[in-house]
Structure formats: C-alpha cells, structure tokens
C-alpha cells in the first residue's frame, strides 16, 4: 500500500504545537514512519515543492499575517485533500487576536518607531482564508490527542472531537476546590474537553483555549460569571485565547 502523504506548515506563531509533536519523541517518529513526509521545515531541508503534489493531510499551525503566508495557505489548500488546523492561533486566532479588541492601530505604535512596510492586518483565523476540514485546538495542542486524530486522518477519516466540557476531565469537578465554588470565573463548563483539564488541575482558571463546545448556551453562564467579577474582567478573560469574537457571534455577550 502506498504511504499517505503528510505535510506540516508553520505560519506566524510560537511554533509550540510543533514542539509538542517533537516532544512526543519516539511516538512521533513512529507516526512519521507510517507516512510520506512532504514538508516539515523544523526537521528537514527539502523546500516545499513548486508543482502539483497532492498531499493527503496538511497540518497548519499559526496565523497568516503576511501576504506570502496567505498565498502559501491557498496553495496548501489547493494541494491537500484534508486540511487540519493545529493549535489555538490557527483555529481561534490565539494570543495575537487580542489586538483586534484593542484597536490594532494603537497596539503597534507601542513597539516600533518607523512602520513603513510593516503589515498590521486584523488577525484572522485560517478558516477565513480557506476551507478547514478538521481542527485540533488548544494552546498548545495535546500530543496524545494529535496522534489519535492524525492516525484517523491519514486513513481519510474525519471524525468529531466529543463535545464535552473541560469540567468532565477536571479533578476538582463537584468538589470544594472547584474554582466556580470559590466564585472564580473558570470557563471549564463551556470549553471543549481534550486537554485533560491541565490548567485547573494546575491551579489556573480555564480560559477556553480549545474553544466553546457546540450546543453550549454560554449566555446564562457568562451572566453568572459577571456576578463573581466585574463584567470587564470577564471580557478580558475571553480575549486571552481569542474566543470573545466567537461568543459575540453566538450572541452570548
């Protein structure tokens, strides 16, 4: 049987999701042995081929900020049967999306004196430019979860991540130690599980980096949170990992 062709692309980002993959060590290299690797600039030298390539699965990390990145993204789409976003940036806009809420003209002024030639577009997720077939969310992604879905994707199977809230994986669920019981605005109940609730378990609120579960009705929940803390603080929390715009679309804010 012919090996499926797989490629990894990194647009503007911290590249942390790629490092999650490398940090899987042997498990990741075993996965790579099952496929024909077309591009992964972190571990090989060959440039992205110019002509027709027909990739089975492309994984895209990061944001298209520069014109060249948008062009590359469109080429990736054209060449790929399945396009998958990996990570919070590509899927939901990520940390850089915060500037959209602040007025992007203001934000850049703080850093550089001369700005000729610097692009300062509104931050847009990958699905604003091309059709996305599957998303592996999170900041960063969970390596084990990646392997689970990647192994299905290379067989051409696109499934759905079970739509359960982060709380279902949290050790504090239903206990005194739950942030919500302490009137701390944890977003666990409306956020997509799959991260093993790694933040609340480590003593930090869930800020929803994996996005909002489908069919959730976040409006009432967010109203409750606004009783715990000032409404602006709740809005600040929703901006950290780029979910505020999604909640606005759902008319939850």
């Amino acid at each position, binding site marked *: 049987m012919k090996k499926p062709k797989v490629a990894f692309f990194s647009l503007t980002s911290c590249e942390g999701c790629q490092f*999650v993959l490398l940090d899987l060590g042997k498990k990741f290299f075993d996965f790579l042995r099952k496929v024909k690797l077309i591009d992964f600039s*972190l571990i090989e030298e060959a440039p992205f081929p110019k002509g027709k390539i027909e990739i089975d699965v492309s994984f895209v990390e990061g944001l298209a900020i520069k014109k060249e990145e948008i062009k590359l993204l469109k080429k990736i789409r054209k060449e790929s049967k399945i396009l998958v976003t990996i990570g919070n940036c590509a899927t939901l806009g990520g940390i850089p999306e915060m500037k959209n809420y602040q007025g992007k003209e203001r934000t850049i002024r703080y*850093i550089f004196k001369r700005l000729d030639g610097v692009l300062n577009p509104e931050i847009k997720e990958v699905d604003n430019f091309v059709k996305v077939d599957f998303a592996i969310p999170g900041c960063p992604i969970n390596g084990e979860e990646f392997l689970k879905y990647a192994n299905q994707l290379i067989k051409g199977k696109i499934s759905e991540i079970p739509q359960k809230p982060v709380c279902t994986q949290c050790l504090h669920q239903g206990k005194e130690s739950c942030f919500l019981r302490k009137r701390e605005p944890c977003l666990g109940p409306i956020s997509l599980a799959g991260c093993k609730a790694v933040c609340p378990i480590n003593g930090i609120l869930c800020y929803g980096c994996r996005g909002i579960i489908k069919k959730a009705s976040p409006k009432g929940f967010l109203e409750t949170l606004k009783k715990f803390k000032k409404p602006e603080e709740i809005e600040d929390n929703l901006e950290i990992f780029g979910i505020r715009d999604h909640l606005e679309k759902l008319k939850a804010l």
Partner: protein
Amino acid sequence: MKITIPHIHKIEGEAGFWAKVTKTGKIEELKFQTLLGLRQIEGILIGRRYFEAPIVVSRICGICPVPHILASCTALEKALDIKISEQTVLLRKLLLAANIIDSHTLHLFFLSLPDFFNIENDLALLKKFKKESKAALRIREIAEEITKIVGGRVVHPITPIVGGFSRLPEKERFKKILKKISFAINDAVFLVDTFKKINYPDFERKTLFATVFNNKDYPFYLERIIKISEEKFTVGDFYSTKIEEDLKNPPTKKVKFKGRPYMVGAIARINNNGKFLEGIAKEKLEEFKKENKISEEAFFKNTFFNLFSQAIEVLNFLEISKNLIKEILKFPLKEEKPEIKFKPASGLSVLEAPRGILFHYYEIDKDGRIFNCNIITPTAQFLYNLEEDLKVLLPNVLNLGKKDQIRKIRSLIRVYDPCISCATH
C-alpha cells in the same frame, strides 16, 4: 553575484538569507531576515492585567517559554515589591535549567548535527546515529519530565505565576527523577564526546561576550551584574544606558552595545563564567581544547564552538539540576500566597535563557494594569554579531559550488541557534 536562501529550515521560526557580492568579493548587501509576521506581544500587553503577562509572553516562543514566563514574573515582582521565597527561587532555577537542557539538546542533535554529515532529514539522522539519538531523546525526556513536574506542562508551563507557583510539585516525583538523572548525565557525556569528534570549520573573529555575572558560581537567575568583555555594569545601567535598540527595521529589533555587536548564549557564558562550570563539564571542556590543541583565545574567536559550548552546558545544567533537586528535597514545600498591593511602579529583570540574556521591563498603574512593556530577546542581541560573522565567512565560500555555499552559510547561522519567534514577537 547574489546568494539567497529564501527559507532556512531547521531553525526555530522562519527566516531567510540574502547577500549581494561583487566579483572582487566586496559585500554590497547582507541580510538575515525573518519571514514571520509581527504578533505585537508588547503592544498587546498594554492595558492588560499584570497576571496575564506570564500567560501571554510564554506564547512568544514554543521552545523557550520558561525564560519568558520567569522574566515577566520576576520583573513584575520587582515592580510590586513582592519578596519571593527561597522555595520559589529553587523551583524556578530548576525549571530554567531544565529548559536550557531541553532547548540545547534539541538544537544540538536535531537541528545542527546533521549539518556536519550532510544529512538533510532527521529521520535519516535517527537511522545513522542510533545510539546518539537515543541518548539525546533520553536527555530531553528527563528535562521535560522535570518541566512537567514543576511547571505542569512542557510547552507553555502553567504553574509559575507572579509571587510564586499556583501548584507545588509532589516530592515523591523528584525522588524518582534523582535516580534517572545520573543516567542522563552519562548520556550527556556521550553527547559531548559525539560533539568532540565533529570537524569544526576554521573561523576567526574577535567579539564581545555579555552574560550575567556573580564571581561565585555559574549564574543564570536573579543576578544583579552584567559582564561584557572585562566591563561590569548593574543590570539597570546596562539595559538603560549601555545598549541601544535599533527599532528602525521592523519587524525585528537589533541591539548593539555602545555601537558594537556582541554575542550572548552558551559560548558567551563559558567565556565569562567557565571557571565556575561543574567538575565534569569543566574537565570535558579542557580535554577538548587540549586534544585539539585549541588555545583559549582561538576557542572564543570561533563561533562554531558555540555548538560544543551548548553540549558542555547540557552536562553542566544536568549537574546543576541534580544539586537543585537535592536542595529542594530538604525543604518542606509549603503553599504560599504573597499579598499583592498595587501601586504605580516599574520593574526590570534579566536572566539567562538558552540563547542568552533576556530582558523584560514593565510599568504598571495603580490598578495593576500594564501600561508599558519592553522585551529584549537574546536573538535580537546577537543578530548584528551573526551578520558580522557572515561577512567574514562569505568571501571564503565564494569559490564553492552553489550547494556547498548555501550549506556553509546555513551551518554558521544554525550554530547561533537563532530563535526567530523570539526575535519577531
């Protein structure tokens, strides 16, 4: 003649190289430039609450999130007059040491080593260097386990917060690590020996080396003095009056010391603080210099030895980690919650990240919101130095074929271990 490498693979972040050289060998133009867009991390932080800083700055870089998190916590603690406990200092040092081991090993083995054997793909590398790759993977595994125990996660650790930690590690897990760490030290000795045998290119250019300094141990966290060449400055003095940031060429900052390029990172640290290396690391370094008849002076003039310096540091920081864990096991780790009182204030911090000194500076208002922020990364500091080195290298590669030319240029760029995500934040 034009030499271009549109996209240099196998570095952290995406970058390219362009040069224009006349027939007589005169360099008319030389650029090492980022291909990434600007995320505007410093701008984004303006108006945000102080405790968001570590979460946000971690996302500057996926391979070195730890130094960014710790530098932001430390700077904000200075601003808010928060005194951190000895327990916090030890745990943070361990976290930082583990990150240096992790980042160096990745760079040494997976990004740079293939350059010296004309291997173009890491899967081929794993086949050719079976024993070595297993050793490298084991070293990374232990560094990542430490990061997980202390930080909760490897990429973008969760627990370090302004004032200390949101959750304390379980001591039992450290005891297990302590057993494994001696094996990792053996692996590191093997890795050092692998890098001892590499055919390092001849190269010579004198430069300045900047690091933190205390004249009593191999320093990397919470130091007050910066040493550059034979001069010493307080951190504040060095940051505010001795270096200039060139902000005219966005999206990358470039930094000079009194108008001169300088080097930071592993080779700089060994130049300034080499006599404080742990026993075995120091022995291995001396052995290498002696066997290859390299003088002290020649070693620090050849940037390619940054690679060997990183290998020595992997060994050194494994020893340091072992000592830190022993120290931590003596402590009854206890939950702490320092009181935080807001006031308008500013705070600056410096620490040794894998690639060199990293500065974080913040100003906060009476409500604990950030209204000014500046981050100077190691890569921004060594970019001029890299360009100067490339200018020395270039005339010597002009007679080579195109492929070899590119290979040589690429390998010099890679020994710097540039972090483009950090440089283009």
